[in-house]
């Protein structure tokens, strides 16, 4: 429950970053997608699935006009990553990059499927296909930035643990 709360709080902050005042960007990084993929690599079916569904609903509150659309898409995306996670090396940074690229495509295909079969909004498919290369590139840049941040943070922690008198000293 506590874990779910923190994930949702992080999701809210990422959503806030995505909705910042109008920019001239043609495409913006899909930060929640990155979070859902990370959940798929590390969380259990129940916790991660619930988090993915709630993150999608959170996204729908600030995007588009159909509540539950991203809830469904993020849940399916989470299940796909979770099903593969046991056969993959989840610690590899390259894996995250690959998953973000394929995840962006998978998300677009799921959206096209839902728009085509469940709703009457049929003008999105062309937009999704046209946007995919740029969206994938932008998401890739966001993932690289995220991995660099994680790298800096880890190195900082290691340096801190080696310092004499550090509380972290001796810990793995």
């Amino acid at each position, binding site marked *: 429950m506590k874990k779910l709360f923190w994930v949702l709080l992080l999701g809210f902050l990422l*959503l806030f970053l995505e909705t910042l005042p*109008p920019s001239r960007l043609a495409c913006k990084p899909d930060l929640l997608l990155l979070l859902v993929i990370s959940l798929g690599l590390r969380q259990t079916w129940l916790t991660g699935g619930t988090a993915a569904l709630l993150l999608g609903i959170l996204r729908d509150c600030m995007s588009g*006009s159909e*509540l539950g659309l991203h*809830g469904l898409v993020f*849940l399916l995306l989470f299940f796909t990553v979770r099903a593969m996670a046991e056969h993959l090396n989840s610690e590899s940074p390259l894996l995250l990059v690959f998953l973000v690229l394929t995840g962006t495509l998978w998300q677009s295909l799921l*959206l096209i499927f839902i728009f085509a079969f*469940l709703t009457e909004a049929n003008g999105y498919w062309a937009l999704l296909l046209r946007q995919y290369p740029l969206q994938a590139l932008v998401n890739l840049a966001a993932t690289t930035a995220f991995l660099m941040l994680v790298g800096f943070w880890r190195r900082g922690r290691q340096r801190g643990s080696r310092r004499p008198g550090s509380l972290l000293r001796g810990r793995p």
Partner: protein
Amino acid sequence: MLEFLRKYRTPLTVLGLLLTALLIYSANLREKPRTSAVERTVLTAMGPLLRGVDAVTGSIGQVWTRYFWLVETARENERLRAENRRLRAEFKTHSELRLANQRLQKLLGLRQEAGLNAVGARVIGEDASSLFRTVVIDKGRRDGLREGLPVIVAEGVVGRIIRCAEREARVLLVTDASSAMAVLVQRSRARAICRGHGNGLSMDYALLQEDIVPGDLVLTAGTGGIFPKGLPVATVLRIDESKYGLFQTIRLVPAVDFSRLEEVLVLLDPQP
């Protein structure tokens, strides 16, 4: 029973979550024009943050032009030059105020000319994804807004309100792919349906024999029950005539520059 649940825990979790997601989605599709409690809560929670960023970016802009610029000129130790630059910075600030004033006067003029009962609002946020075209405005139910009200600027039609919280509302822009409205060509009075395409607009179902040429002004037809008649929507850019079809497909240039949307008017009593 417990043994069964334990054995099939994962498939049951997957099934349960999928059913929940589908139920939420299908329930919302039926009650599309209403703002749910979840949406209202998230919009209300997001509102102060967006307003804060809006205010902070404005202040940072001022600090940037006034303070940092002066520090740089102090390094150069040229007093007169610094004075000149400070005056220029102030002029720029005044120019910005003058431009904002012009825009607001334009909106006010439009409101008075047309005798519209309208509320002015600021755009404080945009859609969380690159796929949809919506914006967040800083007015809500407290100011008399509700779902379905049209939103305009002096240049033309912007969109309609789709979600409304107490102090914030979300506007679906006419350029969104799910947006459609009845329009007519000002010169020939030809009628058609205008649809959004993400960044632009197109006009569908205009009969082949209709007289439409590039440069024609397209206005709202006033038949959809949302937008009043006669508001500018776009200008005709290009016409693709099909040899065998019944209709011509027309590409339009929106009357409004959506990348520079700052203040808008929400019409409270639209008269179709």
